[in-house]
């Protein structure tokens, strides 16, 4: 333990709440990070993992009270340090990299200004030296044309590039310890794989000690040497990544490991779905922006962006079709076009309906095609009670035979395994998973034939995600509903989908069988995508 760069000893932290007992966020946390080591910190939302990261940075909420413990950086107690000492330390010896690179860079300053500021502040360089070193650092994180990059503003570069700039800044001052707070969550699969490779290389070179915070157990197991599992502020298990995956000791860890989607473990039965097509899309094009008369008169460039071009896809009755692709690939636009939220051109054939525009979508079509959105916070009106939200489609499409509205709402809530008393609550009184169940109940108020799920589990914890998926599969068994399941989580989709469509920059590249996706992948992009994903299987073999 003597050469530990970062050591946290019996650390406890409370949040003081008005009119109630203090909330114990962290309790008796002890962990240490050696030089050159990566320690993963895994937990679900609310487990206190980010709070711990901020405690190390000594930047805490105003109502935080430390009960006990010490945080040592290279033998010095951070809790005893004065504010100016800490300011010297932060960004210098101690760095932090955040989840959303877009939010952690100032949009009004160029990337160059933001890097050189750190160098001038912590390395004592003058402006010219800082500029030269900055360019050198950017080329070190494998950014193309670093000198031009220095002059750009954050909105002019991609998310992956922003995260590289932040990593370059963090490594610029030769830190002893870095804290990564979900650095790849906001990035697409391929760029996050590249960021992780870059991080592994820099770690070898500099021997920095890092604390890697994430909710993704498979990812952390691939990145970290040791993993700490955090549950409600307690460290319940601490082991090497491989041991943790192969033989989790604590019940909570076992639950987490079991919930990680494993493509080898299929959740849908192999029985073939009916060959009767339910929805077929022919050459669907979706454009954003418009080329107005004035623009044409002034011979301005056509400002239209094509979100999806010539997409043709068929969904059969009761079939689960996955749509995967990185952000900006047009998968969400496709969902919006099918529910009439954005205009499209092309032909949609839905079970006898021939639609060639959104004006032709009538109430009957809308009843039979339902959509569930990504963020249940946003898709449930915060001013309406749960009962009102679920009753709305019943009023629109008619009540089922022999039931009044209150009975129907209670039955729907029970169908999604929520107590009927929730009808009187407001959405903010529910957890994320419960809210998503309400959204599912609303979609199934009048059993639809097709449900479009737009990243519905992306905002949820793994264990909650597993139960939501289980619920969807059960509803499918009961009503024979087909799903168009849009996601970026390849592991998950390989577990449940009969067929998977891969989209890239608005094009539909290929449609593969969900069960044997890896074997049938022919397109380069699909192969790269599959290679970049961390599966539990890979996480184990890599550590052998």
């Amino acid at each position, binding site marked *: 333990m003597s050469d530990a760069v970062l050591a946290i000893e019996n650390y406890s932290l409370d949040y003081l709440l008005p009119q109630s007992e203090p909330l114990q966020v962290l309790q008796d946390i002890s962990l240490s990070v050696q030089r050159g080591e990566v320690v993963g910190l895994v937990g679900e939302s609310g487990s206190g993992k980010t709070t711990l990261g901020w405690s190390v940075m000594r930047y805490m909420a105003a109502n935080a009270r430390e009960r006990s413990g010490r945080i040592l950086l290279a033998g010095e107690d951070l809790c005893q340090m004065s504010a100016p000492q800490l300011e010297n330390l932060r960004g210098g010896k101690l760095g932090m990299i955040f989840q959303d690179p877009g939010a952690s860079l100032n949009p009004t300053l160029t990337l160059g200004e933001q890097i050189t500021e750190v160098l001038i502040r912590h390395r004592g360089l003058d402006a010219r030296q800082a500029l030269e070193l900055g360019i050198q650092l950017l080329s070190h994180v494998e950014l193309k044309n670093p000198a031009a990059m220095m002059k750009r503003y954050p909105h002019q570069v991609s998310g992956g590039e922003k995260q590289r700039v932040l990593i370059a800044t963090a490594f610029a001052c030769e830190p002893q310890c870095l804290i990564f707070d979900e650095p790849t969550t906001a990035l697409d699969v391929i760029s996050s794989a590249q960021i992780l490779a870059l991080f592994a290389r820099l770690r070898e070179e500099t021997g920095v000690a890092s604390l890697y915070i994430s909710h993704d157990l498979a990812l952390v197991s691939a990145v970290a040497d040791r993993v700490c599992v955090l549950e409600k502020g307690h460290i319940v298990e601490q082991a090497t990544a491989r041991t943790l995956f192969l033989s989790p000791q604590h019940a909570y860890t076992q639950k987490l490991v079991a919930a990680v989607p494993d493509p080898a473990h299929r959740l849908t039965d192999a029985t073939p779905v009916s060959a009767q097509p339910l929805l077929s899309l022919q050459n669907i094009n979706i454009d954003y922006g418009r080329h107005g008369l004035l623009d044409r008169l002034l011979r301005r460039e056509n400002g239209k962006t094509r979100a999806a071009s010539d997409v043709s896809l068929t969904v059969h009755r009761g079939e689960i079709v996955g749509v995967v692709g990185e952000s900006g690939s047009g998968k969400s636009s496709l969902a*919006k076009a099918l*529910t*009439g*939220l954005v205009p499209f051109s092309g032909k949609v054939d839905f079970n006898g309906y021939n639609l060639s525009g959104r004006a032709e*979508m*009538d*109430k009957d079509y*809308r*009843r039979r095609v*339902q*959509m569930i*959105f*990504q*963020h249940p916070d*946003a*898709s*449930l*009106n*915060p*001013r*309406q009670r749960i009962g009102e939200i679920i009753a*709305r*489609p019943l009023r*629109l499409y008619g009540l089922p035979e022999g039931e009044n509205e209150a009975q129907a709402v209670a039955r729907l809530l029970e169908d999604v395994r929520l107590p009927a008393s929730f009808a009187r609550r*407001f959405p*903010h009184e529910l957890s994320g998973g419960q809210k998503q169940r309400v*959204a599912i109940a*609303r979609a199934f108020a009048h059993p639809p034939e097709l449900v479009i799920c737009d990243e519905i589990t992306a905002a949820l914890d793994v264990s909650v995600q597993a139960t939501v998926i289980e619920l969807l599969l059960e509803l499918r068994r009961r009503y024979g509903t087909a799903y168009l399941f849009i996601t970026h989580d390849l592991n998950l989709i390989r577990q449940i989908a009969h067929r998977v469509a891969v989209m890239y920059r608005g094009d539909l590249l290929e449609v593969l069988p969900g069960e044997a996706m890896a074997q049938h992948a022919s397109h380069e992009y699909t192969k790269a995508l599959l290679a970049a994903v961390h599966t539990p299987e890979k996480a184990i073999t890599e550590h052998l």
Partner: protein
Amino acid sequence: MRDVMKHLILSPQGAVGLFILVVAALMVCGGAHIAPYDPESISILARYKAPSAEHWFGTDQLGRDIFSRVMVGARATIVLSLLATLMSMVTGAVIGTASAYLGGKTDEAIMRTMDAVMSIPSLLFALLIVSTLGQSSFNAVLAITIAFVPGMVRIARSVSLAARQQDYVSAAIARGEATHYIILREMLPNIVAPIIVEATIRVAFAIMLFATLSFLGLGAQPPEPEWGLMVSEARAYFFNAPWMMLIPGVAIALVAIGFNLLGDGLRDALNPRSH
């Protein structure tokens, strides 16, 4: 509703605001019974009397008891200003939300019309309307309403634009809801908080605008004990009898503060997240 009242009373701003407005409401309802003198009886012997046990708030240039005038005048001032604000709030919120929801050309047309109305100073616009429709308190109320609508529309629209992006609106469209349902039931409840806060500030403006109209002879007519009119009439006597102007002025300020505090309290009480 009971929840909202409970939270309103528990918050300090809400409690103080509610107290001031309850007092104001008592004046509105029972002012004429509380008033010790006839607010319009002239007394040559009791001119310019400073506040005393006999005349609590003193007397004015015609020897009328100011306390009685303030009590009786509460009805005209508060009720009419409140009515004007309420009307402009409801109209403005609905038009603004509809404009944000419909978007495109409809939005452009509505907003440019509002800009045109806004470019005319509200007092001038109110004068124009009153002189067209004829002099009366109700026409003054109508004038203030129309003059206030564009501001309300702007605020409602800017807040609604954010609500428009929310998935619950998309979900309602995808479900096939009617336009009026989406505007009135999905979007409006989510934007009431800023609108109510804005409206409570506007009540104070409405009182002043109403007073100005009265001063110009287009609202309340002179012997009537309207607060704004009293301030206007007392201007000339400010140096020898400052209470004549101060007392109705303080009354206006207190009512305005009361509405502001109530607005703050309501903003918190109406937000289900803060419970």
